[in-house]
C-alpha cells in the first residue's frame, strides 16, 4: 500500500561538519574565470570528441581547452543531453526539449501530451524519434513533432524515472523509484516487466543502469543498496557478493570500463573503483571528494570527466596509475627509468638494473644486471635493444635483455659520463659531459659515429641534459648554460638563451605536444613553451612551475 503525505516543517540550525580525504590524480576545473561554482547536471560527448555539459547555468561546450557557453533557453537548467551523429538533443529542468544542430539551437515545438517535469534522461531511437524520461511524470516518446506520454497508468511502476538504457532489440531498461522496468516494444504495444527487491534488487530506488561493453550484463546503481546486475539474456537481477559492503551512499552514475571494471560516483562525493573477480565477487576502492559527484564520462583519450555540484573534475585514473615499488625499494632511489615494447619497465637503482612487468600486479623487481658505475640513463629502442648510459663507464646495450655489452668502438664514449640517450629510427644520440655524439645504428647494438656536437660546433654548451627529436625531425637540446639549442635538418644550430628570448640559461627537459609546440622545463623560470607552427618565441606558462 502506498501513501501520499504532505509535511509542513519548521527550521532549526545546527553546524554540520564534513570529513574529506585526499584522492589521487584529479583536477578540478571551473567553468568560468571567477571560479564561481556551477552545478553540472549531465555530460555528453559528440562524434567529433567535443564534451557537452548541461548545467544550472545552461549548456557549455568544451573543446579540450576552454569551456564556451552555448545559448539555449535563458535561465533554465539543462538536465539531460543525448548526442546523435551531429545533433545534440537537450532536456531542460522545466520539461522542455531542444535541438542543437549546425551551431544553432532550436526549441522543439511539440504537439500532444508535453512533459512539465525535469527531463532526467534522453535516448535517441532513430531519426526524429527519441524518448525522454522525467522526474515525476513518466516517459515521453517524441516522434516527428508528436509527443506521447507513458506513465503509471500505462504500466510503468513509477513516474519518477532516472535513466534509460538500451538493452537488446526493441527493449529498453528504465530506472525508477520502484525498481527496474523492462519495456519491450511489440509493434504498437508495450510489454513491461517490473524488477524490484522481490526479484533480487538491493533497493527499489534505481538511480542508474549502464550496460557493460560487449556483454548482456548491466550495472545497476541504487539509492542506498549499492550495486546490482541485470542480465538481459537470463532476464535476472542479482546483488553480487562484495568483499566490503556498500557504504558510499546514493549511486549517481556508473562508467563501465571493461567486462570486469567500472567507476562509480555517488551523491556523498565518493569515486569508487569497482572490480569483478573470476568468481563474480565485487571489490571496491573508494576515494572521497568534497563535492557531490553526479555524472561520469570518458573522453576519447581515456580521461574520465566527473560532473560535480561546483564544476567538472578531470580524473586521470585510467590514464595514469601509480606503481608502488615493493619494500625495500623506493622511487626516490631510482636513477633511470624506461619502458620497452613488451610493457616491461626498466629501472636502475644506481649500479643495479631491474625489470618490472606492468602486467604483474605485485610489481616485483627482477635484477637483470649489475654495472660497475651508476646507471644515469636508459633508452629502449623499437627493435628491442636496451641502451644504458652510466656515470663514468660509457654506454652499454643489451639485445637479449639479460646480458649487457659495452660500446667500445666509439672513442669519445669510452669512460664518458652519460647525461642522456635518445634516438629515432636508425639514429642514436648520446649526450655526455663533452657534448653530443650523433651515431648511426648499423646493426642491433652496432654503432657508427656520424658527428660530434658541442660548444665549438654551435650547441652553446658541452653540457646537454636532454636530446629530443621532434615530429619534424629537428633535434632539440636542453643545455646547462646556453638555454635551448635546435639543430635543424640542414645542420643549422639555433640558440635561445637569456640574450635571445629565452628566460634563463639552464633547461632540463624538452617535449612536444600534439599541436607541435615545444615545451622546456627550466632551472628557475618554470615551464616555457615555443609555438612550433608560428615560430613564436618562448613564452612562460605561469600556471606550471616546474
Amino acid at each position, binding site marked *: *500500500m502506498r*501513501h501520499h503525505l504532505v509535511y509542513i516543517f519548521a527550521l532549526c540550525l545546527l553546524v554540520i561538519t564534513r570529513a574529506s580525504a585526499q584522492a589521487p590524480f584529479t583536477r578540478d576545473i571551473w567553468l568560468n574565470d571567477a571560479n564561481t561554482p556551477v552545478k553540472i547536471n549531465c555530460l555528453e560527448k559528440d562524434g567529433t570528441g567535443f564534451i557537452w555539459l548541461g548545467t544550472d547555468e545552461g549548456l557549455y561546450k568544451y573543446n579540450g581547452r576552454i569551456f564556451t557557453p552555448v545559448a539555449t533557453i535563458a535561465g533554465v537548467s539543462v538536465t539531460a543531453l543525448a548526442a546523435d551523429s551531429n545533433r545534440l538533443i537537450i532536456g531542460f529542468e522545466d520539461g522542455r526539449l531542444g535541438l542543437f544542430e549546425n551551431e544553432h539551437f532550436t526549441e522543439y515545438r511539440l504537439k500532444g501530451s508535453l512533459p512539465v517535469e525535469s527531463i532526467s534522461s534522453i535516448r535517441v531511437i532513430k531519426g526524429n524519434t527519441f524518448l525522454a524520461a522525467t522526474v*515525476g511524470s513518466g516517459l515521453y516518446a517524441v516522434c516527428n513533432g508528436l509527443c506521447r506520454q507513458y506513465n503509471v497508468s500505462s504500466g510503468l511502476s513509477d513516474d519518477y524515472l532516472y535513466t534509460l538504457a538500451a538493452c537488446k532489440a526493441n527493449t529498453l531498461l528504465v530506472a525508477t523509484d520502484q525498481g527496474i522496468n523492462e519495456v519491450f516494444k511489440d509493434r504498437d504495444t508495450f510489454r513491461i516487466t517490473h524488477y524490484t527487491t522481490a526479484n533480487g534488487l538491493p533497493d527499489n530506488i534505481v538511480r542508474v543502469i549502464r550496460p557493460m561493453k560487449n556483454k548482456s550484463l548491466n550495472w545497476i546503481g541504487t539509492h542506498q543498496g549499492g550495486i546490482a546486475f541485470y542480465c538481459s539474456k537470463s532476464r535476472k537481477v542479482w546483488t553480487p557478493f562484495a568483499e566490503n559492503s556498500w557504504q558510499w551512499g546514493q549511486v549517481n552514475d556508473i562508467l563501465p570500463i571493461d567486462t570486469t571494471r567500472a567507476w562509480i560516483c555517488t551523491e556523498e562525493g565518493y569515486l569508487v573503483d569497482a572490480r569483478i573477480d573470476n568468481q563474480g565477487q565485487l571489490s571496491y576502492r573508494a576515494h572521497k571528494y568534497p563535492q557531490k559527484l553526479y555524472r561520469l564520462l570518458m573522453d576519447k583519450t581515456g580521461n574520465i570527466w566527473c560532473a560535480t555540484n561546483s564544476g567538472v573534475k578531470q580524473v586521470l585514473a585510467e590514464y595514469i596509475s601509480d606503481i608502488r615499488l615493493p619494500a625495500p625499494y623506493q622511487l626516490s632511489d631510482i636513477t633511470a627509468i624506461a619502458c620497452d615494447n613488451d610493457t616491461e619497465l626498466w629501472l636502475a637503482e644506481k649500479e643495479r638494473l631491474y625489470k618490472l612487468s606492468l602486467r604483474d600486479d605485485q610489481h616485483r623487481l627482477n635484477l637483470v644486471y649489475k654495472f660497475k658505475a651508476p646507471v644515469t640513463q636508459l633508452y629502449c629502442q623499437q627493435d628491442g635493444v636496451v641502451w644504458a648510459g652510466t656515470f663514468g663507464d660509457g654506454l652499454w646495450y643489451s639485445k637479449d635483455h639479460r646480458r649487457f655489452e659495452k660500446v667500445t668502438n666509439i672513442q669519445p664514449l669510452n669512460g664518458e659520463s652519460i647525461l642522456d640517450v635518445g634516438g629515432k629510427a636508425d639514429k642514436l644520440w648520446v649526450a655526455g659531459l663533452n657534448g653530443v655524439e650523433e651515431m648511426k645504428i648499423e646493426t642491433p647494438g652496432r654503432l657508427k659515429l656520424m658527428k660530434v656536437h658541442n660548444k665549438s660546433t654551435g650547441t652553446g654548451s658541452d653540457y646537454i641534459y636532454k636530446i629530443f627529436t621532434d615530429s619534424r625531425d629537428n633535434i632539440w637540446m636542453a643545455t646547462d648554460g646556453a638555454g635551448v639549442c635546435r639543430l635543424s635538418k640542414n645542420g643549422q644550430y639555433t640558440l635561445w638563451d637569456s640574450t635571445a628570448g629565452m628566460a634563463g640559461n639552464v633547461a632540463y627537459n624538452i617535449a612536444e605536444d600534439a599541436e607541435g609546440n615545444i615545451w622546456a622545463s627550466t632551472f628557475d623560470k618554470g615551464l616555457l613553451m615555443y609555438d612550433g607552427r608560428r615560430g613564436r618565441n618562448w613564452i612562460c606558462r605561469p600556471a606550471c612551475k616546474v
Partner: protein
Amino acid sequence: MESARYPEITFAGKIIEDVDLRTDGKYTVRAKGKLTVHGVTLDRIIYADVTVKKGIIDIASKFNVALSDHDIKIPRIVNDKLATEVFLDVKLTLEPRN
C-alpha cells in the same frame, strides 16, 4: 532566509517503501518528493521513522538542507559564523478525522 517573503517550507511526496500504515508497528521509510525552501524546489529523498499505534501515525525525521542548494545567501559579515547547511528535526502526528 527572508522568512517574511518565504514564510513556508514545504515537502510534498510519497513513501517509497511498501508499508501498510493501517497495521500497528514501527517502520523506517524513505519519502520521495519536492522540498521547497526559500522558494526553490528540489527533488529529495528523506528518511523518516513512522510509528503506527491505534490509528495514530507519528512521524519523526531529521535531514540536512544545504543553503546554497536553495539560493540562500549568507551575509559576508557573518560568513564564518553560520553553517552552510541547516539541520531539520521534524516531528508530526497524524490522527484520524472524526
